[in-house]
């Protein structure tokens, strides 16, 4: 880690001994904290998800994305490699790409036609030598001396990450073996296909959504879809994995085959005793029909990469989510719904139906879009109070139960380390 500059004099004190289990609400509210986040997290020694390799198939393909609040272009050049650089002209700072995606031979700024290569190098200046010996740039102007900042790029099983800091740890070390293994579990050796993209605008600080994705404790309490319709009939077990620095995590649940076998032995009794708690039933359960996709019994896996990336497997609904700050009180959540090239028609249909569970209108995710706003509104006037994150103790260690806030504490541990806060 670079040595971090001291905090501004008016930054409140967050007691060291609070670690990640007491989090003051001013962390979500202050402009100067957001400025520090852009500098120390999003432009610091972190890896930020940018796009899928599948979105950059041919040389000249590009996508315009954001890393934190900074606009970035990701390209595939003719050497087959993927490059990323700021979406900012060398000259006067205008956006270079004005479309979300496309195929181009270079990036020529609309303002004064300064041209940049697919790798982000300045390669041409309109009227560089003037006209008829008049005007033009000074003879000693060196085009290599200016240009948008470049990002280091890493490709993890088709997920493209970027870092503004050359000194960032290799992504394998950043993720740790266990988290990396869980990315591979879902994506290794498969060709992804984008099924759809949606941007959800949330009325809250970005960290409130990150906390929510790492919070396995809330799932069965806030999201009542499965319990109301009594859809979770199989015994489940699961657990949490937290990366060494704390900031990446995996939460998963899987069918408990031992408990299922035990139940099967006792069906004669249980069949007679089971009484439905409610009369509510779904009329068309084909919405939830899933197919065997993985070698294990894991039906749900939510994986996060610090600071703002989520890979989700809910049965056969696969998606990535990118968390982007937009000021202190707003954020964008960019969803990309994913299928695979070798999906059969039936499998593709199952994914589309299961995607009713996710997104801004999803049966088990629509509540998540609201909860951050409730916290923002609830904590107005309570900047110096703090959230209590002591469920399952105070450590950041994973384990085999999910009634814990360990992975949220892990996020705050890594956040504090990287922010110097």
């Amino acid at each position: 880690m670079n040595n971090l500059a001291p905090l501004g004099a008016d930054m409140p004190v967050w007691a060291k001994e609070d670690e990640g289990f007491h989090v003051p609400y001013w962390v979500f509210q202050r402009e100067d904290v957001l400025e520090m986040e852009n500098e120390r997290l999003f432009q610091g020694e972190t890896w930020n998800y940018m796009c899928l390799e599948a979105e950059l198939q041919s040389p000249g393909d590009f996508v315009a994305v954001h890393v934190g609040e900074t606009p970035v272009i990701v390209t595939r050049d003719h050497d087959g490699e993927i490059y990323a650089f700021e979406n900012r002209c060398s000259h006067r700072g205008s956006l270079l790409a004005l479309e979300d995606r496309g195929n181009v031979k270079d990036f020529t700024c609309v303002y004064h036609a300064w041209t940049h290569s697919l790798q982000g190098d300045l390669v041409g200046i309109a009227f560089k030598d003037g006209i008829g010996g008049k005007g033009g740039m000074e003879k000693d102007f060196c085009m290599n001396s200016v240009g948008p900042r470049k990002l280091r790029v890493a490709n993890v099983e088709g997920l493209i990450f970027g870092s503004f800091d050359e000194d960032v740890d290799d992504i394998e070390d950043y993720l740790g073996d266990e988290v990396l293994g869980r990315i591979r579990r879902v994506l290794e050796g498969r060709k992804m296909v984008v099924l759809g993209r949606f941007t959800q605008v949330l009325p809250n600080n970005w960290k409130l959504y990150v906390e929510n994705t790492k919070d396995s404790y809330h799932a069965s309490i806030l999201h009542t879809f499965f319990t109301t319709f009594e859809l979770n009939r199989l015994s489940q077990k699961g657990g949490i994995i937290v990366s060494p620095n704390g900031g990446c995590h995996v939460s998963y649940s899987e069918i408990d085959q031992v408990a299922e076998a035990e139940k099967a032995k006792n069906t004669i009794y249980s069949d007679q005793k089971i009484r439905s708690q409610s009369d509510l039933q779904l009329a068309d359960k084909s919405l939830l029909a899933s197919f065997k996709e993985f070698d294990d019994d894991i039906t749900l896996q939510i994986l996060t990469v610090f600071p703002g990336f989520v890979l989700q497997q809910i049965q056969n609904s696969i998606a990535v989510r990118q968390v982007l700050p937009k000021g202190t009180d707003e954020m964008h959540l960019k969803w990309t719904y994913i299928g695979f090239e070798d999906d059969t028609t039936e499998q593709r249909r199952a994914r589309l139906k299961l995607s009713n569970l996710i997104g801004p209108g999803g049966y088990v995710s629509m509540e998540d879009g609201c909860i951050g706003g409730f916290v923002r509104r609830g904590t107005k006037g309570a900047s110096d109070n703090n959230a209590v994150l002591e469920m399952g103790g105070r450590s950041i260690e994973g384990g085999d139960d999910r009634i814990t806030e360990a992975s949220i504490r892990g996020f705050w541990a890594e956040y504090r380390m990287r922010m110097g806060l």
Partner: protein
Amino acid sequence: MNIHVRQAEVSALISAAQARYVREIDDGDCTAWPNFFVDDCFYTITSADNYAQNLEAGLVWLDSKDMLRDRILSLLEANVYERHSYRHMIGQPFVDELEGGEVDSETSFMVARITREGPTDLFATGRYIDRYRIVGDEAKIVSRTVVLDSNQIDTLLGFPL
């Protein structure tokens, strides 16, 4: 019957059905919403970008009338959200020619959302890309693709559009 008269009649049936449809969502409780569809219907909500790129996924993706009923049941009984309502303004339907009792139709819409503590906000604009079946003097939706003009959805998309 004169083809133009028949065309005008079909347009009127679709307009009347759409007026009842938005009234059910805005001023009713949505429980009669599935009745505007045939049994083997299709309903999805997507964005103009996804639609233009032939990307299939939807924010909502339902392919039977029972799924539409389940959607409303879940919203009323299972899901948790802050109290809110919609106000739809719909344009005149552009109605294509009737073929074998079915007809394609497109209608623009604007939807305002009114949330418990909030003002009236513009929530969504877009168009319905529909296929209607004319049964007697009723127009029923065979397929409705709700194409949102923007990719951005604010906070939550619960009730149907």
